[in-house]
C-alpha cells in the first residue's frame, strides 16, 4: 500500500492488465494474507459436511463510511447474518468489488482491511473475489457483493410455517440504530451524529437460540424494512395474527429522539445487528436469558405474542405506549425526512 496514499482508482485498474494485477497484489492480497486460503483465486476448493446454505447480497450503502461501520464490515456481517438466521454457521465468502473510477485507493484499502477484520470476527474465510471498475459517474463510489456458504446446524422445520398461536416474539436488542447512523451521515444531520450503526455478527445469538431445538420457530435479521417488515413476514399468509407492545420494544433514547424529529418509526428503520425470533412461549424467558448472555443481546426482550386469526389474520397489531392500538404494516416508500 505504500506509495498509494493519494492515488485514485482508474479504469485501467479494472482492465485485467498490469495495473489490475498491481492493485490485487499490493492492495487486496495483503488484507487477506495469512489465511488458510492465501490467494484470492478465481475459484477455490473446499470441503463441507452435511446440508449447506448459500446466500448472496449486494451492498450499495451511501456513504461507504458511517459511524459504527463501513460498507466492508457490512458486506461481511450482512451476508453472514443471512446464513446465521437460516440456521447455518457461515464458513466461506466471496468478495466482488465494483469500484467507481476516481475512488481513493487509500479508502479502498481501508475498506478491505475492514472486510478482513470483520471476516476474522465472524470466523469466516474470504476465498475468492473479483474487482471491476466502472467509469466516473456510473457508480456510487463502491459497491460490494458477497456470496456466503455455511453449514446448516438447526432443526429442519425452522421456518415461519412452524409458528403457532401462543408463541412469543423476541427482539435481540435496541432497534433503528443502523438506519439513523447512515441517514445522519448521508444527510449530514447533526442531530443523529451521535448514533452508531449496530452492524455486528448475529451468529452467537442464533447459536444460543438454535440450542432450543424445535422450540425455536423462526429467526430473521431485521435489515431493510426494519423490524416491521420481519414481523409481517413471520405471519404473512397465515391464519394467525401478532400483537406487540411499544413499551416492550428496546429503543435507545437518542435513536427514538432522532426518529421522532425525522418523523420515522424505529420499527421501520434498518438494523444490521438485530435479530427477531419467534419461540414457543414455554421457553421464552429462558431464550431471552440466553440472548442476554451475549454482549449485543443484553437488551433482548419478549415484545409480543402470536394470537389466533380472529379479527386480524395476517396483521401485526401494536399497542402504543399510551395504550392505543393500530396495525403495523409493511413499510412503504423511501424514508425521507419530512418537510415541515
Amino acid at each position, binding site marked *: 500500500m505504500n506509495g498509494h496514499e493519494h492515488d485514485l482508482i482508474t479504469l485501467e485498474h479494472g482492465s485485467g492488465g498490469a495495473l489490475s494485477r498491481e492493485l490485487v497484489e499490493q492492495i487486496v492480497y495483503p488484507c487477506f494474507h495469512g489465511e488458510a486460503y492465501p490467494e484470492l483465486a478465481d475459484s477455490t476448493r473446499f470441503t463441507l459436511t452435511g446440508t449447506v446454505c448459500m446466500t448472496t447480497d449486494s451492498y450499495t450503502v451511501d456513504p461507504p463510511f458511517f459511524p459504527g461501520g463501513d460498507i466492508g464490515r457490512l458486506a461481511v456481517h450482512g451476508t453472514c447474518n443471512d446464513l446465521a438466521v437460516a440456521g447455518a454457521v457461515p464458513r466461506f465468502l466471496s468478495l466482488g468489488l465494483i469500484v467507481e473510477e476516481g475512488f481513493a485507493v487509500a479508502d479502498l484499502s481501508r475498506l478491505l482491511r475492514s472486510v478482513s477484520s470483520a471476516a476474522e470476527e465472524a470466523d469466516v474465510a474470504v476465498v475468492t473475489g473479483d474487482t471491476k471498475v466502472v467509469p466516473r459517474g456510473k457508480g456510487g463510489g463502491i459497491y460490494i457483493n458477497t456470496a456466503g456458504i455455511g453449514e446448516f446446524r438447526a432443526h429442519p422445520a425452522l421456518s415461519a410455517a412452524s409458528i403457532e398461536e401462543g408463541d412469543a416474539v423476541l427482539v435481540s436488542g435496541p432497534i433503528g440504530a443502523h438506519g439513523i447512523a447512515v441517514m445522519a451521515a448521508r*444527510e449530514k444531520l447533526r*442531530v443523529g451524529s*451521535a448514533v452508531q450503526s449496530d452492524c455486528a455478527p448475529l451468529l452467537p445469538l442464533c447459536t444460543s437460540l438454535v440450542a432450543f431445538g424445535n422450540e425455536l420457530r423462526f429467526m430473521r435479521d431485521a435489515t431493510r424494512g426494519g423490524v416491521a417488515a420481519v414481523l409481517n413476514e413471520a405471519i404473512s399468509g397465515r391464519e394467525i395474527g401478532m400483537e406487540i407492545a411499544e*413499551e416492550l420494544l428496546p429503543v435507545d*433514547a*437518542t435513536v*427514538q*429522539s*432522532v426518529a*421522532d424529529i425525522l*418523523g420515522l*418509526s424505529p420499527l421501520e428503520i434498518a438494523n444490521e445487528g438485530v435479530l427477531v425470533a419467534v419461540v414457543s412461549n414455554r421457553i421464552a424467558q429462558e431464550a431471552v436469558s440466553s440472548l442476554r448472555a451475549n454482549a449485543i443481546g443484553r437488551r433482548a426482550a419478549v415484545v409480543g405474542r402470536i394470537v389466533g386469526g380472529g*379479527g*386480524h389474520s395476517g*396483521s401485526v*397489531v*401494536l*399497542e*402504543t*405506549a*399510551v*395504550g*392505543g*392500538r*393500530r*396495525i403495523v*404494516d409493511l413499510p*412503504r*416508500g423511501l424514508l*425521507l*425526512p*419530512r*418537510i*415541515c
Partner: protein
Amino acid sequence: MQPDLAFRDRERAAGIVARIREIAGRLGRDIRIMEVCGTHTVSLRRHGIHSLLPRTVRLVSGPGCPVCVTPSGFVANALRLIEKRGVTVATFGDMVKVPDPEGRSLSSYLGSGRVRIVYSPLELLELAEEVPGPTVFLGIGFETTIPAIASVFERARQQGIRELYLYSAFKTVPRALRALVTDPECAIDGFLLPGHVSVVIGLDPYRFLAGEFGLPGVVGGFEPVDMLGAILGILSQLESGVSAIENAYPRAVRDDGNPAARAVVNRTLVESDAVWRGLGRIDGSGLRLREEYADMDAGRVFSLPEVVDRDPPGCLCGRVIQGKVTPPECPLFGRRCTPDRPVGPCMVSSEGTCAAYLKYREESA
C-alpha cells in the same frame, strides 16, 4: 438528547381519556374535531389515539399538509419551468411525486439534474452558485416553514446571489380555517390547532373561530398526552358552552408567537390570494415576494400562467382536505392510489392524510 417520556405516560393518558369519555357521555352526541396540521394527523394515528376515544368523538383531518393543499396546476407550472423556460427546479422531496393534472410529475427529471431536492432552504444559496442558469425554488408550506425560506431570499439579496428565484405557493392557515367554517356544509365542532404554526403566529389569528363562529380551538403539541389534553380542552368548552382559543402547548407556543420570525416574513413577502386544492381560491391566504424582490419572483420573471386546481378523475383529495370525507371513503384509497403510485397529493406526502391513514391503519371493527 432524551425524549420527554412524561408526554407518553400511560397513566396520564389514561386519566385524560377517562375524563374525555365522561364529558363525551354527558354531551351525548357526535362530536367532530378537526386536526388542522398534517403532523398531528400522523402523530394521532401513530399513537393509536383514535382507538382510545369514544365512538362519538371523531377526528377529521384538515388542510394542514403543505403538499396536499398545493394545486395540481402548480406542478404543471413547475414542469413548464423546466421544459419551456430551461430552469433548474429546487424543491423539498415530497413535491417530486405529486402528479400534475395529466399525471406527470417532477420525478421524471430527478436523474437529469434539472430537479434538485433540498432538505434545508439554506442549501439554496450554494445551489444557485453551483447550477448554471436560473434556479427556481418551489416555495410550499405554511407559517412554520415560510420564515426560514424568507430569510434565505433576504440573504441571497444581501449577498448579491444571482439567478435564484422563488415560485411561491405559500399558504397561511387562519384564512383557510375561515373558508372552512363559512362553508355551509361545514360540520366541525372544534379545532385541534397546529402546534408548529402557532409557534410563529401565536393565538390571536385564531380568535375569530371562537368570537365569530362560537367554535372551540385548542393549540396542541404532538405527543400523545398533548393531543389528548387538547381534545379534552375542546370537549370541556363544548360542555360549558363557552368557546375560546386556548394554548395547551405552552412549552413551545407563546401567546404572541414569534415576532422576529414574522418580521422576516413581512420584510420579504406580502399577502396575496392563493389557490388551495379542494378549497379553491381564498383571498389573502397566500404570500408572494414584495415589489422590492420582484426580480426574484419566478411567476413574474418567467411569465407563468395562473395556477388551476383540477384533481385527477375519481380523486377525492379536495374533499379529504376539507374534512368532508375520510380517506377510506375514497374508491381509489389503497387500491389504485398508494404511496408507491399516488394519484392524489394526500397519498404522496408522509404527512398526507391518506398516506397516514394507510400507514397506520386501525383494526377493522
